[in-house]
């Protein structure tokens, strides 16, 4: 693995601290641009949903939930559609650049979930949920992290495909058909948004739990005193 590791020396004490370059620039750039795009997509999506907050018939209309306007972006349906149809390109672009970079640079190896990671998922879940013993960290990403970061790419792809089926149910009628028709595509799009939000929630909890050095590494790429042995 092409992890760049260095030792940082304190001039006064001569103390050495190790640091690794964990997140390549493209990954960090895509991460933060996508963060903004995802925020806008969900906010404007909820405003669009407010126009018809139901998955049933129009007549009679039974609302699923009265989502507050203050937790939505765009102010009105037309405004929200402008945000949604603008930021979807940014959202898609960051996804494509991220996945493309990971594949061509080989960096995917540190984060892609593969079958041999499967046995390690449960011990991590047990550690976080039930305060079980902490499994030793061997790599930059533990099996649960790999599972989360790989799954969320799948959710991202599904969010785009379900969105495409709603936006273009005629030109991509086969896509809408795969999802059970326009009606179902809209419901899937909504469900996938909540799944992504669930990921974001877990992600933020982990950010808090793993402290400052870990947080900073998403900005600078460098992580001081990594928890795992540097190769």
């Amino acid at each position: 693995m092409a992890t760049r590791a260095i030792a940082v020396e304190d001039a006064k004490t001569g103390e050495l601290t190790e640091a690794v370059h964990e997140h390549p620039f493209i990954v960090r750039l895509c991460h933060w641009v996508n963060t903004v795009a995802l925020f806008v997509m969900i906010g404007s999506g909820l405003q669009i949903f407010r126009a018809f907050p139901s998955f049933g018939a129009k007549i009679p209309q039974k609302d699923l939930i009265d989502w507050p306007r203050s937790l939505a972006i765009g102010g009105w349906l037309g405004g929200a559609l402008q945000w949604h149809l603008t930021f979807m390109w940014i959202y898609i672009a960051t996804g494509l650049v991220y996945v493309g970079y990971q594949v061509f640079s080989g960096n995917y190896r540190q984060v892609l979930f593969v079958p041999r990671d499967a046995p390690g998922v449960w011990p991590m879940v047990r550690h976080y949920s039930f305060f079980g013993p902490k499994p030793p960290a061997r790599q930059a990403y533990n099996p649960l992290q790999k599972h989360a970061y790989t799954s969320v790419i799948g959710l991202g792809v599904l969010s785009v495909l379900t969105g495409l089926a709603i936006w273009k149910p005629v030109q991509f009628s086969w896509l809408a058909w795969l999802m059970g028709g326009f009606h179902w595509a809209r419901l899937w799009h909504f469900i996938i948004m909540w799944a992504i939000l669930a990921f974001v929630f877990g992600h933020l909890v982990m950010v808090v739990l793993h402290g400052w050095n870990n947080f900073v590494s998403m900005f600078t790429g460098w992580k001081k005193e990594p928890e795992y042995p540097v190769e």
Partner: protein
Amino acid sequence: MPKFMSSPIDRRKFRKMNRRELLKLAPVVALGAFAIPSLQKPLLKAGLGFSDWASAQLFRSGHLAPTFDDSDLTPFAKFPINDYDVDDPGVDFDKWTLTVSGAVQKPGDYTFAQIQNLPKVTQNTRHVCVEGWDVIGNFSGVRLSDFLKSIGADPTARFITVECADDYYESLDMATAMHPQTLLCYEMYGQPLTREHGAPLRLTIPTKIGYKQAKYLTDLKVTHVLGKVGYWEDQGYSEFYGL
């Protein structure tokens, strides 16, 4: 301590390196332009414009919208009536004509009978509202393309515009106007169009969003340039909105 690729570096140099890496993320800040009021409107207009351009590229003249069995139809009573103003603008059917103008060889007032003389088409297609609901309806009428040919419309013209008895107005790109499922509709569910659904003549366009499918038509123009786009479009909704 593991083996390092280079000898230890000074703390200050490490900080500088981190700062440089952080500054490389400056492009993210550019997204902040969307938060500046004076820039927000033009940026979103450009974004929506790009989506409309992509929509027009994705449109395929020969690709038909899905059609459905009669058993899939939404009951007529549950087919929503959406207006921006009144359900019934009070059209006088006896005096009604469709006034045709613009880039056509035969402009003038066309009677309901003249339009009905063209081949009748019936289709069960999905009507999708921008709000998010959808229904499947039964629509009969004449192909807009047949009508455009009969009036000698200039095929190089880019747009069709329509005006309605309730002051609603809309426009269509020529490719969509010529699509075989784009109808000048005068019947729904085998019955003459009711006033609420746009009698005597409305547009049915299965490849477009609902607000494009204007009701109570009174005027039709073939044109190379577009002034106003449509009632909702001119307030900020998508201009193309092809499905």
